[in-house]
């Protein structure tokens, strides 16, 4: 029996005797995350909002675009201020808006759009950022310098302006909104990935792979990217709320989602226009959006603490 086989058998015996299980980085991180109360509460809240957004519209009695001129700007029946002009009958638990549409279902549709934008745009930024950063860091030299110089140039732009121009140019195309936001959010991701790649590519296992004749792209895919996932995951959870904010910002200005579809930015903008007579139109979308953003921030902070190798 070879020495290596012997050692591994010995280790196994010891592990079995002491009942120790090896813990991978991810198992360890999950345990630490589950101990973080703010993060756990955020995950539960966020999952609830997402499940509501997906399933409640299937069973809710009102459609998001059903206009009802008999129920314009009506408060929900439980509204504490009894001096409002009218109360909505039926199941309008968040009241109705300026076209008599049910506000609750519209907030949920807003959640659908916002969460979808958050995921799709973040994916776009993830793909561009990780690819760009990993190649720059791994190849190094002149190419690295050139690529990072380009990122520096783009950093100087207040890029919400570019997105605004893009939205005007492409006539508020729904799908392009997702891509446009993602396409301007990848810069920080590229920087983080490049920095991580620089340190990992000096490790022995990467050198061994290179010596064994593994090509650059395969090496990046098989050895670099799996090892930088930690910081990338943390940054992804922090990018999602930024993206949701950008979309709402554009929609608020009237440059994003268009009627009858809706998003939180549109709802808040409508709410701001009617806040004197119908404050619920501002309060409910704003509150749900704020809760969602809080949740993402807490989860991001929690993940950062859980994945930080320095304080384990």
């Amino acid at each position: 029996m070879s020495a290596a086989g012997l050692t591994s058998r010995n280790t196994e015996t010891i592990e079995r005797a002491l009942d120790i299980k090896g813990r991978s980085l991810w198992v360890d991180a999950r345990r630490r995350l589950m101990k973080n109360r703010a993060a756990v509460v955020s995950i539960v809240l966020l999952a609830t909002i997402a499940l509501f957004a997906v399933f409640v519209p299937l069973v809710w009695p009102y459609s998001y675009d059903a206009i009802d001129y008999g129920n314009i700007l009506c408060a929900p029946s439980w509204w504490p201020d009894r001096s409002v002009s009218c109360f909505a009958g039926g199941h309008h638990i968040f009241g109705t808006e300026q076209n008599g549409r049910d506000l609750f279902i519209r907030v949920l549709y807003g959640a659908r759009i916002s969460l979808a934008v958050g995921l799709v745009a973040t994916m776009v930024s993830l793909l561009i950022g990780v690819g760009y950063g990993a190649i720059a860091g791994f190849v190094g030299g002149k190419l690295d310098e050139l690529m990072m110089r380009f990122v520096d140039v783009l950093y100087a732009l207040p890029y919400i302006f570019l997105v605004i121009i893009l939205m005007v140019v492409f006539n508020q195309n729904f799908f392009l909104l997702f891509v446009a936001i993602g396409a301007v959010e990848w810069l920080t991701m590229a920087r983080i990935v490049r920095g991580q790649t620089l340190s990992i590519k000096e490790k022995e296992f990467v050198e061994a792979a290179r010596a064994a004749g593994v090509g650059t792209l395969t090496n990046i895919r098989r050895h670099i990217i799996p090892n930088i996932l930690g910081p990338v995951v943390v940054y992804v959870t922090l990018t999602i709320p930024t993206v949701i904010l950008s979309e709402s910002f554009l929609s608020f200005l009237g440059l994003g989602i268009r009627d009858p579809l809706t998003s939180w930015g549109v709802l808040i903008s409508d709410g701001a226009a009617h806040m004197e007579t119908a404050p619920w139109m501002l309060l409910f979308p704003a509150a749900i959006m704020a809760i969602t953003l809080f949740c993402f921030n807490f989860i991001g902070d929690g993940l950062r603490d859980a994945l930080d190798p320095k304080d384990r």
Partner: protein
Amino acid sequence: MLSYAIRRVLGAIPTLLIIITLVFFMMRIAPGGPFDAQRHLPPEIENNIKAAYHLDKPLWQQYGLYMGNLARGDFGPSFKNHDFSVNELIADGLPVSAKLGISAILISIVFGIALGTVAALNQNDWVDHGVMGIAMIGITIPSFVTAPILMLAFGIYGLHLFGIDLFLPAGGWNGGALANMILPVTVLALPQIAIIARLVRGSMVEVLRSNYVRTARAKGLPSYTVVYRHALRAALLPVVSYLGPAVAGLLTGSLIVETIFGIPGIGRYFVEGAINRDYTLVMGVVIYYAAFVILLNLAADILYAVMDPRVRFQ
């Protein structure tokens, strides 16, 4: 240092050129032009209008003409605000935006540093948790939510505090009167105050643990001197490098704030120009904003090197 500054300014010129070119062609390939929405004109008149704005020429000629005028400092005529040149519109709006933005950045710096320092000095007790909790709210809640809520609270209902009726105008500029400035400046400054407070708290906590601060305390210096003469200077470095992004954030915020409060600054011009396809006006505002961000990043870098003796200009 002077040669470093000159090199940086020269390095900014290609960046600006790229931005101008990008925005120019993006606006022009857009379907629909600035004169589409108007009532239907006879073709001869339409052609005359297009000729007057050089829109009948090939794209590359339009680009050449625009860059030529720009080199002479002429942003061209506004397509939508007839009889006004972009230069005139910006000259009207810039002082307003500048007054708003400078007040907001000064207030953010002063309050952010003060709150962050207080939180760091009371690390982990209720003052710290309170300040950081409020900062979290300030970072998370976007300005287009705080603005209408503050307008509702102060402009429409009016708040009664300590027997005083606080009633602030909910919109308008009124020549930059103090009462008109309070709400928009607050909305602009809140997120920046929150971010700066978090930055200062983080670095202050670290600096207060460092050896030279312990030495200063061991020498028997009063804690006021230790904090303000010794610790604060080092703790402020992250704030200096955050100034560039802070200004970019303020410019973005100014789009919302100027639109909501009806303030006649250049942020509102940009939003209206983008919606109306007023090419020249949008270009003018973007060029101003980009130049401003680049200059401030440069100023922040130089300030950083002045404050941190370990940094050398190369």
